[in-house]
């Protein structure tokens, strides 16, 4: 499975990439939103981890921009996970809400308790969808 990680924090990017690769997936890394958007459009990943706060394009901006590519096509959208260290879940612009608004599938707060589980959960969502009706069409 092709997974794209967009995060300006190298350690986060690298740990996610390592975990994904360890689990046998292909992983692409982008250090900011612009590069992430470029890779996303070029590579059509099946799962995307995208940080909210980044220099340049923010996570939700990247997601909105990327999702426009899929409009009118039958290409399946990837599973998109917004990740952020800013996890105050009761604040006004909560990341969960933000995720729902921009079209991301889920939000994962940093730090991760178990990095492997984070990757696996996203992969599980992808395979569930692939197995589902979407794959037939």
């Amino acid at each position, binding site marked *: 499975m092709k997974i794209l990680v967009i995060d300006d924090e190298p350690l986060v990017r690298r740990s996610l990439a390592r975990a994904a690769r360890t689990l046998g997936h292909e992983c692409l890394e982008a250090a900011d939103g612009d590069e992430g958007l470029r890779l996303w459009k070029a590579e059509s990943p099946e799962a995307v981890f995208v940080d909210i706060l980044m220099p340049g394009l923010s996570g939700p901006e990247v997601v909105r921009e990327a999702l426009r590519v899929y409009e009118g096509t039958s290409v399946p959208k990837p599973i998109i996970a917004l990740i952020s260290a800013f996890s105050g879940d009761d604040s006004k612009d909560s990341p969960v809400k933000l995720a729902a608004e921009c079209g991301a599938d889920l939000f994962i707060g940093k730090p991760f308790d178990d*990095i*492997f589980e984070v990757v696996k959960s996203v992969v599980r969502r992808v395979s569930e969808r692939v197995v589902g009706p979407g794959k037939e069409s």
Partner: protein
Amino acid sequence: MIQGSILYEGHDSDGFIREGAFRSRTLLTARLPETGSRLAAAFVVGSRSDLVAYLENLRQHEPAVDIWLIPDDREDLKQSLPAPLLMQLINRFRIRGWVARSVSEIERAIAIGSRELESRERYLKSRKELGSRNRQLHDLQENLEKIVAERTSYLSDAERELHRRTQATRDLVRFIKDLSQTETIEEILQLLGHEVKSFHEVRAPMLALVSPEFGARLHFQQSRSGGGKSSVRAMERGWGSKPVSKLWPARSVIRVNDQEDQTYLAQELGRPVARTVALPLGKDSRSVAGPLLIFEHSFDGAKADRFKNFLLPRMEPLSTALDRVVINREMHAASRLWESTFDGVADPIAVIDLDFRVLRMNQAFSRYEELRADSKSDTKAGRCYEIFAGRNEPCEGCRLKEWRPAVGQASARAAKATEPLDWQVRRGHNVYDVNGYPIRFQDDAPIGTFIHHYSDVTKSLELKGHAFQGEKMAAIGLMAGNIAHELNNPLAGLRSLAQVLRHDSRYPDSVKSDLQEIEKAAERSSAIIRDLMEFSSAEDKPREVVSLNHVTDSALNMLKTALHDHAVDTQFDEDGNVQVLIEPHLMQHVIFNIVNNACQAMRESGRLEIETKHEGGKAVLEIRDTGPGIPDEILARIFEPFFTTKGAGQGTGLGLSMSRWVVESFDGKIQAFNRLSPKGAVFRIELPAGGAK
């Protein structure tokens, strides 16, 4: 000269009697009426046969004349009559005796008789004179007595009149004196009612009056019956007053039985009215409706005049008294208005002289005096600081204190300094804003008085302080949030990378164990950041039921540096009974505060005991240090707002007051006390256990 006649009875043949008027017997009885002369002596011949009858006859006619017996020529004097008969005759007819038949003898007897006659005549004359004198004297006496009686009656009349006038004057003086003591219209009426009591035909007085206070009113005294038939004290006097639609047009003369007055009064009273006497009172009786005094009466004409005369001298004093009472009343009302305004102000206000003596105080201020009087009334205070705060010297911060010397030194400056002063003083736990307004009673007079207005600003200061603290916390929260985010990112990466690497089979176990340590350290850091974010949350969060242990632990996490030099001994009640309904981050502040204070108090390395326990339905947190303890004199004040022992800039002094406020908002209680062994301070927080109310 012999005045009178001589009667000789007998023979005059020898002319023995040569002169004089010897008369016949007939002449004797006629008593010489033609001459008017008196009989000087009578000579009777003793030998007469009818001697006794003759003498009887003679004596009958001449009761006073001297009768002499005279002998016949022929007979011897002694022999003519026997001696016993002679003595009998002499005694019976008062005969003077024998006289010899000689001229000299007879003349002698006549002389004697004449003398006696003369003297008798004189006697009679003088008696007559005396009688007339006596009569005159009597008349005089009578006259005198009459005069004396007249004079006496006049004098007693005058005395009575004098007495009456004195009494009237005395009555008037007493009335004026009594009047001067009256304080109300009712008292004046009562007094007047009593004054006119002696006039039975007059009823209790009424007074028609216009006063700004009650409008047009009729004040009156009335009889009040004691009730029941046998009213022993039936005539007790009562008074009343009733508003009237209008007062009669003023006329400045006393009116007796004035038809117009009676009509007016009857209309106002709504009943028939007897005849009236109406007296205008008041200095300006020409004003539209000056006070008017009215009596109902049943006098006839003369008595009414007497009553009028009785009242006349009383009019002026009555006017004066009435004016005084009315003016007093108005002044009283004005002063009452002022006083009730003064008292109505909820803030304490006192009028104070430059020696801090309280001249006047309003009710709010006097409550402090009452409080003092309750506690210790030995010193009769009078100074503002004594009454207000129970101090022995002017309050700290009092600006009157610094303003005062200026009075003596530069009176010009002082006289001009009419700007209000303001400052803050403390009274017990409370902080007051004081506004001092200088008062000058006369233009250009130096200021001798201040009005101090105290307003309790404790609450607002507290709120301001809390708001300030809140803002500070909000700023810290925002910053902490940013820092946490910044830290969280690399931490997340660090931890995750260590995790990933640990699962890489290519690395030896020793490396994996190191990686695990890195992962754990990162995890701990994350926890601290999470606590910090929770702690610094600026938002009001709902209360939740949490474990006091957990909250305490989180707070302690942020105090690692402060606690670095001290041993920490935590004893947590693990029964789970220390669940409390609180706002966790606020509670953390409280704990943070107390522990931080304790660490600062323990200058050298000390031991901090932190214990949670469950006591009688309360969840208890005790924080005990081994510092020097809290000095007794400030122990009671440490929870006051702005109380601080730290220097300027080191603390706002809000920490502990905030703590008390927070704990009390959770229906809890916070206390501080000292322990002796080991020496140190103890803070004890009690909260309702289980979050149950």
